[in-house]
């Protein structure tokens, strides 16, 4: 330990993080902060893959990965955490192996489960920040509500074909939440999923990388995060647009007279079929 109580960087860490250490906005204090940070990624798929890869490479000390699925050949076109040899493995295991190979400093915690209103608060609680890279509305509303109740920042990203959206929702900032933007989900079937409509393989790489960028900014408290803004990316004309988000006084969660005081049945709320939960947590690294 050094005089100020911090463990000094090892020679390997000085070499690994050299390009961060010379950035005034990161530096030794920032890098140490990243090493002491923990981030939960909801989904080890299209968005979670690039986000997790960059966060691991950046030295975020603990990464939790929530996913119940196994790697399928149809994932490999965009889910760059996984390779051909990983087909059939649990995504959390494949992700953990990849992240550990990139940076052994990182502790990866596998949550092989369907996150739901019974387990979300317990799963989210140990982490500093939540990344929403899910693929369905029930989990998006659940992630928003659970992060709000736990007062944790939520980095939101969503993709469709050639387009993406992302935003940071920070309950402490009082700048609104996902429900302020979309109080209720679309009617079932009104918005096709990527499985139904397709997705351009590199698109989640762009949005997921920006989610990692925003996550690191929020952890380091640098720059101007996308709080109170929504970024819209349109790949076909390569345009980025930022629009203003406002807290909605009528928001059922964070409005003036909230009606949502705890986690609810999100499958019923979104008109989606219920999913049976499974439980397994594995720590790697």
């Amino acid at each position, binding site marked *: 330990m050094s005089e100020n109580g911090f463990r000094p960087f090892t020679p390997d860490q000085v070499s690994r993080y050299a390009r961060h250490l010379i950035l005034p906005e990161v530096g030794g204090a920032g890098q140490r902060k990243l090493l002491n940070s923990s981030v939960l990624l*909801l*989904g*080890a*798929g*299209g*968005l*979670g893959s690039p986000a997790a890869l960059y966060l691991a490479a950046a030295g975020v000390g603990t990464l939790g990965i929530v*996913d119940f*699925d196994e790697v399928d050949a149809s*994932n490999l076109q965009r889910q760059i955490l996984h390779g051909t040899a990983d087909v059939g493995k649990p995504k959390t295991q494949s992700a953990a192996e990849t992240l550990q190979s990139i940076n052994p400093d990182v502790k990866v915690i596998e949550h092989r489960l369907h996150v739901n209103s019974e387990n979300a608060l317990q799963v989210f609680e140990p982490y500093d920040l939540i990344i*929403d*890279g*899910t*693929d*369905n*509305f029930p989990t*998006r509303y659940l992630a928003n509500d659970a992060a709000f109740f736990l007062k944790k920042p939520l980095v939101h*990203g*969503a*993709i*469709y*074909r*050639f*387009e993406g*959206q992302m935003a940071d929702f920070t309950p402490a900032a009082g700048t609104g939440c996902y429900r302020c*933007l*979309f*109080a*209720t*989900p*679309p009617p079932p079937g*009104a*918005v*096709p*999923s*990527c*499985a139904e*409509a397709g*997705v351009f393989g590199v698109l*989640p790489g762009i*949005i997921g990388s920006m989610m990692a960028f925003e996550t690191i900014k929020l952890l380091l408290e640098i720059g101007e995060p996308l709080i109170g803004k*929504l970024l*819209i990316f*349109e790949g*076909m004309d390569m345009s980025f*647009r*930022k*629009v*203003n*988000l*406002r807290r909605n006084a009528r928001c059922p969660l964070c409005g003036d007279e909230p009606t949502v005081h705890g986690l609810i049945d999100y499958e019923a709320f979104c008109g989606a079929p219920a999913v049976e939960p499974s439980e397994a947590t594995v720590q790697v690294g």
Partner: protein
Amino acid sequence: MTSIELRLPSMLASAAGGSTRIRVTGETARQALDDAFARHPLLRTHLLDEEGHVREHVHLFLNEDDIRERLAAELHEGDQLVVLQQMSGGRS
């Protein structure tokens, strides 16, 4: 009349003749939308409910600002009216 660009997400292109960018005219956002609906009636069904209000999962931005509850917003040359629709993809 002011001519502006209406930008649609690709999931609504099929309701607008296959295009995600439409030139529309009007002095207000409501008039510009009505101009688009006159040529693409199906678009109205996607954006507005039976009472003429913007659907819950749709937002309308005039440049950077959300105007879903103030469609009387005045238009100026060079403005863009942007339709934002909720999307869920990311993991699968």
